């Protein structure tokens, strides 16, 4: 399951997508809208995605993950639109034969998503708003793979 959606993410649906008899561990990661950025109050977040490209990028991350951690499976759903504080912006479920691979693969999946999947975030403040980039996002002069 790989999706970009405007409606709230149902965590149980994402988790169900990676269930399999060979899995000994399932991890569900939720990225959640936080109420501040380095102490500055944030009222809410607006997410925008290039959906037709974001889903194939998620699928490519999943293929790479399955190669690096044999037997692991991943599902990812990213939210778009206006989020209130506390709502999940992204949900990533990983299943793997053992917990070590599950933890490693889960970390890989969220880091890769932040670096490659075309999604953008705007923070809303009491006195304005600003687009915020991930530290993982490639910077000037970097060409995509």
């Amino acid at each position, binding site marked *: 399951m790989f999706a970009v959606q405007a409606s709230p993410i149902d965590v149980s649906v994402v988790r169900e997508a990676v269930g399999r008899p060979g899995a000994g561990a399932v991890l569900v990661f939720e990225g959640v809208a936080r109420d501040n950025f380095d102490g500055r109050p944030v009222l809410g977040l607006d997410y925008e995605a*290039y959906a037709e490209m974001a889903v194939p990028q998620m699928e490519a991350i999943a293929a790479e993950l399955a190669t690096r951690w044999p037997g692991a499976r991943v599902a990812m759903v990213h939210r778009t639109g206006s989020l209130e504080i506390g709502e999940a912006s992204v949900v990533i479920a990983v299943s793997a034969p053992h917990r070590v691979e599950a933890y490693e693969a889960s970390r890989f999946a969220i880091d890769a998503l932040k670096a490659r*999947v075309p999604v953008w975030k705007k923070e809303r403040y009491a006195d304005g708003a600003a687009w915020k980039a*991930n530290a993982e996002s490639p910077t000037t002069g970097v060409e995509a793979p």
Partner: protein
Amino acid sequence: MKIHVRHFAVLREQRGCELEEVEVAPGTTAAALYDLLFPPGLEGQLPVLFAVNQAYVARAAVLVEGDEVAFIPPLGGG
């Protein structure tokens, strides 16, 4: 030749639209189209990645008739 350009996030706001059709000469690269639509001025350009037909490409990728191009500003997903 005609190129379809999709704009997102800060670039969408700067350009004032989500989609535009641009006529360019054969041989035009993704980076050249970016310079055309977002000229490097005194404030400088935003660093972007380049996508053609929903896949990342090198900045020197040569465009062809009917391509869908997007300039990918710094990502904020997650």
